[in-house]
């Protein structure tokens, strides 16, 4: 049990082993571990970015839906307003038409009354003429009698 040449040999073996293991085992594995760590970190960062993007998209979608709802409500309100207007317009128009019909009816009635009066007047005239003819047949003073007849018609019409 003493220190001898083995000591030198062991130093050589040890130093060689440190060098060999460093280049063959430690460095490649360490590099692989480091690159994996980086990859995992990148992946986590990407996942976080994805989550954020999803939240953003969700918020945007919600905003779009809210805007669409508002728009729809506006459209419905406008449609309701328009319907009310249309209803009112049609009511007014119908009323006007009714009034026009009534007016036309009244005018027609007036015209009818006038026509009836004229017919009546002519009939009366005809009757009067017939009567006059008969009177003429009886008394041949046509001129005086016609004057009397006209007077009688005028008074008759005024009372009619």
């Amino acid at each position: 049990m003493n220190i001898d040449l083995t000591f030198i040999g062991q130093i050589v073996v040890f130093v060689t082993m440190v060098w060999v293991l460093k280049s063959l085992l430690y460095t490649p594995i360490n590099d692989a571990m480091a690159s994996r760590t980086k990859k995992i970190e990148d992946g986590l960062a990407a996942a976080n970015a994805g989550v954020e993007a999803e939240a953003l998209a969700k918020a945007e979608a919600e905003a779009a839906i809210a805007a669409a709802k508002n728009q729809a409500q506006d459209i419905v309100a406008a449609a309701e307003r328009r319907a009310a207007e249309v209803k009112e317009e049609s009511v007014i128009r119908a009323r006007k038409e009714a009034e026009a019909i009534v007016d036309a009816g009244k005018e027609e009635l007036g015209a009818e009354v006038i026509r009836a009066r004229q017919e009546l007047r002519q009939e009366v005239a005809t009757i009067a003429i017939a009567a006059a003819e008969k009177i003429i047949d009886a008394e041949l003073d046509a001129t005086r009698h016609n004057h009397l007849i006209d007077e009688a018609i005028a008074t008759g019409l005024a009372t009619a």
Partner: protein
Amino acid sequence: MQIHLDTMLVTLVVASLMIGFSLWLRGKIIAGAPTGAQNAVEALIGFVNDTVRDNFPVHNPIIAPLALTIFTFIFLCNSIDLLPAYLLGHTAHLFGIEHFRPVPTNDLNLPVAMALTVFGMVLYYEFKLKPGHFMKELLLQPFASLLLDSKNPLVKFLGVLLIPLNFTLKLIEEIAKPLSLSFRLFGNMFAGEVIFLLIAMLLLADSSEQLASFGGIASELIGIMVGVGWSLFHMFIGLLQAFIFMILSVVYLSIAHQPAEH
């Protein structure tokens, strides 16, 4: 000068196995999800990296591979102890080699070689990183620095006189590091091996009648039980000593890397 062929042979076999394993693994290293052997080696390297990072104030790329080599190499050498006590010795005997001692860490040369290599690195970094500070510490600690700061010339002269004493004390302090490092490993492994041989003697019998007797059978049973127990315990000791050697090397080197305080 003589050379211990058994130590050299076993060390070279262990080293070749480690190199072969490294070469075999190197072709299969992937940066993706690791499997099998790469997993185990990565756990080991991660552990060594953590240990070095916890102790070192600065980054030195050689420390972690050094610690890894110390740990794995010593652990593998210690593990040879778990083979049956006389197996390798008797096998070697068949090839005409007398007095074959299989465990290289039982040979003082290996622990001393590793400890002195580490010690050499400590001295190298001490002189490289803070030469003035280390020389001052070597010559003026623990007694002289206060005396030399004094205005009184007589006290100052006393301080100069004390320099050899300081140097001796510091030398003992520094030499104690590799000495304790190597002797701790050697002592533990040597004692373990001796106990293995003693346990193996329980199993020895002169003849088949003796082996078949009640005492023989009891001795065999006790021997096997104690042998299994000691194997388990010694496996733990081998791991522990490898770890202690590694962590103390890292600590000594980290002390050399500490920035000078004054």
